């Protein structure tokens, strides 16, 4: 969708961007990452020609951008900046409709589009359409900034640290909202960031820049698991393995088809099951398979009776859609080494243990 072919930018004698080659496939979120002054913002701004490249070619949707009128080009690419840049003299509605108005869309069409877009980011059009930017909170302004870029439904979006100016709590919320939006819209996005956590969370591809050069361009998991050199390793942080926890879902790391007992089973049955699997506890499920409690091996050995009489409550359960970071956090919170995994309806699907997490993370390391 977007292709950079040996793109170089010189500012006087300084090479800001040095022969960068990269390709962003349609529907991907490509995060340009690096310390300040690494050339990531310059690279992004060359895509909509806010900065003209010194040499090299940039293709958007197969067309050489140098051959498209720059105003036409920019109207076909959504643009979001860190400072948001909502026009204070215009209402939220008119801000959202800036590009549709420039393109001469029918007014009714563009205004109904504005209302639809506001709903997509959970802002009530009835309340917000006629407001002015100064009447919005920072988070609301940023949401409007994002939907303004989407107004004319451009296939490509450029975002320059769009969530950088928002407090950490709101940032998480807006990032999640945005990812949900993106899952629906499937835009091709080039996203500048200096925050590795944000990159890991949002990106399908991460491009790491240093001194104007593209050092590594890969999936977040590969960047974290196999940094290409010491610079990347240092930049992604010594806790990069922990960061990978975020990228793996519980479902992909859990042991499936786990042993289970029912309330009416005897402790002997439970004990046999645990010995067979080498476990020291087993989960008790309800009649339809919902996780209800657990029985410990020492109890099963010492006592007589049914599971129902000797079960204890589960110390913690985790949803199979959560990431491993949440799972590990929950383990530490409850001081346990394993967690029962359930789906959205509470059905017992499997368990994650510290060993299964290590295995899941280790899988990619063992590839080499």
């Amino acid at each position: 969708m977007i292709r950079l072919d040996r793109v170089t930018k010189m500012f006087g004698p300084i090479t800001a961007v040095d022969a960068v080659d990269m390709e962003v496939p349609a529907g991907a979120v490509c995060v340009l990452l690096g310390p300040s002054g690494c050339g990531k913002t310059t690279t992004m701004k060359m895509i909509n020609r806010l900065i003209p490249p010194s040499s090299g070619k940039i293709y958007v949707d197969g067309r050489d951008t140098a051959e498209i009128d720059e105003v036409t080009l920019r109207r076909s690419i959504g643009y979001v900046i860190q400072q948001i840049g909502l026009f204070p003299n215009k209402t939220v509605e008119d801000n959202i409709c800036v590009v549709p108005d420039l393109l001469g869309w029918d007014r009714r069409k563009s205004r109904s589009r504005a209302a639809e877009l506001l709903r997509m980011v959970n802002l009530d059009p009835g309340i917000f359409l006629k407001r002015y930017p100064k009447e919005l909170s920072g988070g609301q302004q940023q949401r409007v900034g994002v939907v303004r870029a989407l107004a004319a439904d451009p296939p490509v979006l450029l975002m320059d640290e769009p969530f950088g100016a928002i407090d950490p709590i709101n940032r998480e919320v807006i990032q999640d909202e945005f990812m949900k939006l993106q899952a629906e819209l499937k835009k091709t996005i080039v996203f500048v960031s200096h925050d590795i956590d944000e990159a890991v969370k949002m990106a399908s591809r991460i491009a790491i820049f240093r001194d104007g050069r593209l050092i590594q361009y890969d999936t977040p998991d590969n960047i974290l698991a196999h940094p290409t050199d010491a610079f990347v390793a240092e930049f992604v942080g010594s806790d990069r393995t922990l960061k990978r926890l975020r990228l793996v879902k519980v479902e992909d790391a859990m042991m499936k088809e786990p042993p289970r007992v029912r309330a009416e089973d005897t402790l002997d049955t439970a004990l046999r099951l645990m010995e067979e699997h080498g476990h020291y506890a087993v989960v008790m499920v309800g009649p339809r398979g919902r996780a209800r409690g657990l029985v410990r091996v020492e109890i099963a050995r010492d006592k007589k009776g049914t599971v129902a009489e000797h079960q204890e409550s589960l110390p913690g359960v985790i949803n199979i859609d959560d990431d491993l970071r949440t799972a590990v956090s929950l383990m530490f919170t409850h001081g346990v080494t394993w967690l029962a995994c359930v789906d959205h309806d509470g059905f017992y699907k499997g368990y994650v243990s510290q060993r299964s997490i290590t295995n899941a993370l280790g899988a990619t390391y063992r590839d080499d």
Partner: protein
Amino acid sequence: METINFIVANLPVIGQRTLEHISIVSVSVAIAILTGVPIGILITQSQIAADRVLYVASVIMTIPSIALFGLLIPILSLIGQGIGYLPAVIALILYSQLPIIRNTYTAVMNVDPALREAARGMGMTTIQRLREVELPIALPVIINGVRNAVVLNIAIAAIATYIGAGGLGTFISRGISQTDIRQLLTGALAVSLLAITADYTLLALQRALTSPGLRT
């Protein structure tokens, strides 16, 4: 009391003089807006040009009005307009330049660069950016400059009576030369009243033209 009697007895003349006064001021400010605003916008492109233009405009402001009228007499005599309406208007245009150019320049320069970048990034041309973003945001400050110019010109126009331009200054100059306190007071009151009225009218205009999103 005598002054009030004088005012009542001379209402038609006072009205006539007031219209002359308004004519001089409004024509000169209108022309000054047409020159000053574009100049103020243009010089935002070059720091050097801005420094020079603002310097020249400041120098013009320091010339005493009576001296400027004097200077214009020999120049405009070449076209037979040494005294009267034309030199008065020209002088007032010159005096208006500083407040209008300076306010336009400052207002446009103070527009948040992020807005300019957003506008450019979304595909606005320079003209569209000026029309949609920069001028609407700069407008309150520009109108402030116009208000300054108008009040200043109402005062200076009173002196233009000495070069035969008419206006409310006529009462003041006659009041002085004839030691007639009634005429003197009439002129002074009328000029003050005109200045205050004009200032409030423009303030109301400024409020009406400012986007609700920019009001503080």
